[in-house]
């Protein structure tokens, strides 16, 4: 029962983070919000008894994607200064 409650909470927070990611003006917040979305998703996977996927999502989904995003953002912000 507790798991369902936790899952609902996680679900809502992922959706909130997703909305933030789409509608914020600052790009940096958007990227961090995407990282957050994928982090919450990996926790959701844990709840759904899929540890492998959770680890991958955490490592690749939130870790590497956000990293590449930040590098690219840094590169682009660099250009127009």
């Amino acid at each position: 029962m507790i798991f369902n409650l936790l899952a609902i909470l996680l679900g809502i927070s992922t959706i909130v983070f997703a909305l933030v990611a789409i509608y914020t003006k600052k790009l940096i917040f958007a990227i961090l919000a995407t990282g957050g979305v994928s982090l919450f998703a990996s926790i959701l996977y844990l709840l759904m008894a899929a540890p492998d996927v959770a680890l991958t999502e955490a490592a690749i989904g939130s870790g590497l994607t956000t990293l590449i995003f930040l590098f690219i953002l840094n590169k682009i912000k660099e250009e127009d200064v």
Partner: protein
Amino acid sequence: MEYIGLITGFILVILGIWGFLTQKNILKMIIGFTISDTGINVIIVSISYLKNRTAPILNRPDLLTDTVNKITDPVPQALVLTAIVIGVGVTALMLSYALRLYQEKNTLDINNFKDLKW
């Protein structure tokens, strides 16, 4: 539990595609794409979930006997693994495209790249 996952997954996909189609900035589009990708992964995993069953890793001896009705469906989880990595590969490629586009015209607005039309 899986219903919750399914709903979140579908909503994430819808939001991702909405962001993808309405945002002018290319990076925002790619973010939209990543979100819908994560959404798809959530859907796939929530399909594999069976009520009060453990992960498909048989580390405890009691799981070895009659594992059929003890573990969740391992196949979608294997598929998701590949899907995530594909997502990363495609996103990395899209980002480098975005970078090159930025270097060409110093702007990230999709409407400026209309040289090829009709």
